[in-house]
Structure formats: C-alpha cells, structure tokens
C-alpha cells in the first residue's frame, strides 16, 4: 500500500516538474527544435476586436500577397468598388484573385511599398465608410456541391494559407492523380512566440473551424482529420475537443516546441511520417491546412465571403496594449498600432508575422496582407544584437535543427564561398525556421548563410536547365 503511495507521489512530482519545464513526455512531438519563451500571456486572454475602417481611410491592397503569380488589376483609378468585389484577377494556376476589403473609390493603381521595402503593384482604395457588401456574393450549402465546385469557390474567394506562407489553398487541395491522401492535418500549433491569433480563433469560433474542416475533408475525400494544438493552449484544446465531438475530427495536443507549426514537423509529430526530402506533404499522404484557413474556407463556401479580413495579434514590448484584432487586408500597420494604444517607449523594430520566422517591416505605413498573423513591436533595447563571435563548435545548432542538417558546417563552407560543399551538406533541406540562429551562443547569423546558399544553388540549377 505504502509502496503504491510513494510511486504515485513520485509520479505526480515528476509530472509537475515536466509541466514546469514545459515538456510533457506523453505528448507527441518531433525531433530537434527548442523552446523559446512564448510570451503569449500578453494577448492570450484578449478577445478578438474589430479594427475599424473609417471614412476617408486609405487601404493599400497589394496584388501579390500570395506565393505564385501576382494577380492582375481589373479596376482603374476612379472606379467605385464594393466590399468583396474582385479588384485583381489571377494569372495562371498558382495564383488567386484579390478583393476589395471595403467599399469606396479606387484612387490609384500603382506600385506601393510592401513589408520588405519593395515597390509592388497595389490597388489603393479610399474607404467611403459605408462598408457596403457586393450584392453578387452568395453562399451555398457545401453538402450539395461537388468537390470541384467547392474548390472553385475557394479559388474565387482568394483563400491562401493563413499561417503566413500564403500558398494558394486550391492548389494544395488538388493533389495530382494517383497521389492518395489519407490524412488532413489542421495546424493549430501556433508555435511562434507572442502570436495568439489562432488560439483566439479556436476559442471563439470553434464551429467555423470545424465546418471548414468538414468541407476540406469532403474535397480531399479523406477519412482522418487531426487538429494539432500545442499544450500551452488548454482552453483551445478543450473547446475544439467539444466542437469536434461526433464529427470524425481528432484533436491532438502536442508538446511545447518550436518549430512544431512547420508543415513537415507537424506531420511527423501527428503521424510519425517523414515528408521525403525534396518532396511535398502529399508525398506521404498528408495535406496540412491552418485552422484560420479552414475558417476562411467555411466563410467562403457557406456565405460567399472572400478573404478580405483576418485575425492578427498585435503585441510586443513596445505596444501599449497588446490585442487580438480582426483586421482588413490593406490597413496600414500604424492604424492597428493606434487601435492598440500606440507605441510605448522607443520603437526598435517592427516585425510582421512571428518573431522567429516573421519579416522586419520597413515602416509603420506598409499595409497588412493575407499572411499577416501578427504585428510585433519591439523596444529599442530588446533588438540590440551582441557582436558576432567565432564558432566554438558547441553543437547546439546541430541538436536544435529539426531538418537534421549541420548548420555550423554549412556556414563554415559558405564563408569560404563553397556553395557546392554546402549543397552536399544538405542545405536545400533547411526549412528556414531559424532555430540554429536563435540558439547560437556566438550570435552567428546562420540562417542568412543558408538563404544565400539556397538561392545560389537554385540559380545554378536554373542555369544548368537552360544549357
């Protein structure tokens, strides 16, 4: 009896310790990776608020907000547009249409600054404040539509991967003939620190997500659908479990680790399968979609609503009041920040997306896009980098790499300009998660070398093809 007690006690203690350390050994996960402080507490309790568009506000809607060919503008300066109206038509298969986020007048079709600081084509709309819907938009009952019709609706709504990659969803849902898909995996991991947009979505609109998943299941004709959620979102896990009851959707809580939300790592965590090197998730029978994408698919099919707004987290040490916002595509970052009480202290850096894989924005005036999962403002003191030191071969990067390559060895070769050697060291398998750069005690910008290597190798391959 006493032995039993001691056993139970010690087990409880070990569990407590693991919880404290953020590692629950019973939960599934992938190999490698690390656990940066998640800093989600700033915004995880904040309900989603609508960031309003007032009369006279300018919305800059870029025609290339997705991976693939940019859309082509089909409106001109002076045109009146309604909310949800198509303003850019897709060019080619891997492309999507672009829609007006609100009603108003087109005041320019010209290149405008995007997040990265490049000038790309955009439609600028001056809002009339009425926010009037395009009357042509209509919903349908998904159960009465064929998979192809569903896909057409998804394309027409301009749905792209909302986790940040912005890959056109209809392409992902069209596996080539002969590829058998047996798993639909929903990405509710949100492993990026600070971000809580997917978390809030799952807590507040679980039925939207579930309905979206059912539509996606029908399109792909798969039996198994699994939602992967990291264990630091217990409310979301509980809510989704309740919403999924009897729907044939499984909720899979995952151990806390970055980059669990990366497609290949999530597939491994949930199914134990590895996407073949150089292949796509469909090569191991999986399709991964973000939970936000599922909700957008539902809105597109049932109500005919195109992708003109999304949920984004505004957070970071330099934001007065971190919040989760429902934003309209094309709103400038400054508007969002203003709605969150403005900048607090000295602003050091603006990041669009998560702190690990997001992109530094050049100014507060650039607009948000379909891939904006968050806007993070960091204070000056927080973004100072310590000077780069020599590599002491501690091996932290090798152990952290979820793609099982050797970051420091590749960087060593790249410093000497040896792209061929870097290719032999499997640099092409890098998923650019930045774990190595994060963990490096010498502050070596490892990821930068891999990006250089990858683009050089791609250029070489293109050259070889030409010859």
């Amino acid at each position, binding site marked *: 009896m006493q032995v039993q007690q001691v056993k139970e006690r010690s087990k409880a203690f070990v569990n407590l310790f693991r919880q404290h350390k953020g590692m629950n050994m019973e939960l599934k996960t992938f190999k490698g990776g690390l656990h940066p402080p998640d800093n989600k507490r700033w915004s995880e309790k904040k309900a989603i608020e609508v960031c309003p568009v007032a009369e006279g506000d300018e919305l800059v809607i870029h025609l290339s907000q997705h991976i693939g060919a940019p859309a082509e503008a089909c409106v001109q300066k002076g045109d009146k547009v309604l909310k949800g109206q198509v303003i850019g038509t897709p060019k080619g298969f891997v492309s999507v249409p672009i829609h007006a986020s609100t009603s108003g007048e087109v005041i320019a079709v010209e290149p405008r600054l995007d997040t990265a600081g490049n000038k790309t084509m955009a439609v600028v709309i001056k809002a009339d404040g009425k926010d009037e819907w395009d009357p042509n938009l209509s919903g349908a009952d998904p159960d009465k539509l064929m998979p192809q019709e569903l896909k057409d609706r998804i394309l027409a709504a301009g749905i792209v991967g909302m986790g940040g990659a912005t890959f056109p969803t209809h392409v992902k849902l069209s596996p080539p003939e002969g590829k058998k898909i047996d798993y639909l995996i929903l990405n509710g991991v949100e492993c990026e620190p600070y971000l809580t947009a997917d978390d809030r979505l799952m807590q507040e609109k679980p039925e939207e997500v579930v309905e979206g998943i059912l539509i996606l299941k029908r399109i792909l004709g798969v039996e198994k659908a699994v939602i992967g959620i990291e264990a630091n979102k217990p409310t979301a896990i509980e809510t989704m479990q309740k919403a999924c009851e009897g729907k044939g959707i499984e909720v899979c809580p995952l151990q806390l680790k970055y980059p669990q939300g990366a497609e290949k790592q999530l597939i491994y965590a949930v199914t134990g399968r*590895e996407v073949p090197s150089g292949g796509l998730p469909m090569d191991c029978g999986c399709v991964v979609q973000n939970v936000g994408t599922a909700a957008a698919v539902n809105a597109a099919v049932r109500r005919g609503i195109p992708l003109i707004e999304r949920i984004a987290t505004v957070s970071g040490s330099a934001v007065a009041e971190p919040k989760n916002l429902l934003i309209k595509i094309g709103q400038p970052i400054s508007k969002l920040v203003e709605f969150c009480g403005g900048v607090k202290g000295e602003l050091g850096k603006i990041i669009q997306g998560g702190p690990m894989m997001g992109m530094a924005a050049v100014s507060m005036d650039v607009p948000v896009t379909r891939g904006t999962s968050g806007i993070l403002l960091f204070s000056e003191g927080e973004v100072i980098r310590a000077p780069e*030191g020599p590599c002491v071969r501690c*091996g932290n990067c*090798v152990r952290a790499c979820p793609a*099982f390559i050797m970051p420091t*060895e590749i960087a060593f070769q790249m410093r000497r300009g040896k792209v061929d050697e870097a290719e032999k060291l499997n640099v092409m398998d890098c998923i650019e998660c930045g774990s190595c750069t994060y963990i490096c005690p010498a502050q070596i910008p490892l990821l930068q070398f891999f990006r250089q290597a990858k683009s050089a190798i791609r250029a070489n391959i293109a050259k070889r093809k030409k010859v």
Partner: protein
Amino acid sequence: MWEVIGALCPCCLLWILSFGVQASCLTILFCVLGCVLAEAGWELIRKQPITVRDGSAVMTGILLALNVPPNAAWWMALLGGFVAIIIGKQVFGGLGCNPFNPALVGRTVLLISFPVQMTTWVMPRTHEITSATPLSAVKMAVGLHGNITPEVQAQLSGVFYGGLGGQLGVLSALALIAGGCWLIYRKIITWHIPASFIGSAFVLSSIFWLVDSSKYPSPLFHMVTGGLMLGAFFMATDWVTSPLTPKGMVVFGIGCGVLTVLIRLFGGYPEGVAFSILLMNSATPIIDRLTMPRKFGAMPKKFGLVTKKG
C-alpha cells in the same frame, strides 16, 4: 566559459588543500597568467580585439595547472601557458579554430621537454616528494617483474583515499563528477562524451582485469587514478575539439576510453588520457563527416511511401 571554471572549483579547492596552499596556488596562478599574457600579447601584436574576458584563456590555464605537478617550477607553469595558447590555439586562428585541446598541448609539450619535473609529484597532505604515481608504480612493477608485486599492491591499497603521489583518489573523482554533472545539468556539455569515455574505459579495463588480475589493475583503480575523470568531463568535452553530432560524440568518447586503457597497459607512458584525447581530437573532423545526421525525410522507413527521384 566562466561557468566551466566555476564547475572546476570544487576540484581546484581539493587540489589546493591537499597539495599545499602556497605551492598549488602559485602553480595555478602562473599557468593562468601564462595563458592570459600569451593570449593578450598575441592579440596585441596581431592588432586583434583582446578576448581575455571570454574566459577561455583562464580556463585553459586552470586545466593546464591541474595537469602539472603542484611543485613544478614557476617558469614551467608560465611556459606551459604560453605554449598552450600560442601553439595550441592562436596559430590556428584563435578560439574555435584549434584542432587540439590547448591545455593538453601545453601539458604534452611540458611532459616531453621536462620528463623528470613533470613526473615528480608530491604526496598529498604530507607533501613528501615522490616520483611514484600509482599508474607509474604499476607500470614499473609490471615492466620489471611481469606482474603487480605485493609491495606495489600494498601501496595501491591506499589509492582510493589518495595515499600516493599526485593522487587524490576517490575524493577528487567525486569533485570532478559533481562539476561535470553541473555542466550537464546546465546543458553546457552533454552526457555523451563523459559516459562513453568512462564507460568504455571501465569495460575494457574490466576485461583485462578479469583475464589476469595479477598483471592488470582493477577497473576501479583506473577510474580514480590519473586524469581520467578530469579528461572525461572537462577536457574531452571541449566544444571546439570534439565532434558536433551526438553519435560522433559517442564514437569520440569510446575512442578516448579505449586508447587511454591501451596506453596505460601497453604504452610507453604510464598515463594515456592526454594522448588519447589529443589523438581523438585529430580524428574529430573525420568523425563529424562520417556521423553526419540523416537529413529529415531522407529515408522514410514507415509506410513505404518513397518518391522516386528522376
């Protein structure tokens, strides 16, 4: 680096208390001074930023000090420090570029240049001068008589409590294990190298001991003598000179353990830790190459869903 120095503290303290405060403090001081001066001087001459504050030179100095007899002459300690830093590290390009553990380079150069001084140790506590460390006593006995003579055997009985020259016995082993465990807990080193180093040395020496215990000393004797614990926890685990991959680290550790025992039992020198680590250091690049991790998705074993490559 400073944390590694902190982890060496218990051992250093024991060292100082056993071998006499004055002599051992001076040795440590001169070793560290030699290293720091060499590092700063070299960087001054080469007009490079002075990197003394990163602690790596200080650490090399302390590790070197624990490798020379506490009663060594001050100029030997200073010279060892110079050699360790300049020949062991700076000529290769400084921190991160050296193929060999600098402290061991320093020690080896001293050992070869001043064999008498380097093997003349004092007895702990009594501070009598003796040339017989337990390992050399065994080596001589086996060399002269073909087996461990009863007199030596009697001497060795005290080894656990540090009764012989240069030997602190089990207490120092424990101090080193404590420091090593701290480093593992703080994730500065991983368990792979110490475990495989000590494990393989234990297994191999056990085999010899079981075959002929009159000729070969017991595995426990190997564990507590010489620099095995120091080497396994603090020298072989040196980031720069050990492999990057966990698999490579195990190979490295086993190599060190096996070579140590072979050198101790059959080599020309009584102690083999330093040589075995240096030898394995030279094998590090090739170990890294051969134990490169299998990239993600290179051979999905399950489900047989391998895509054909054109």
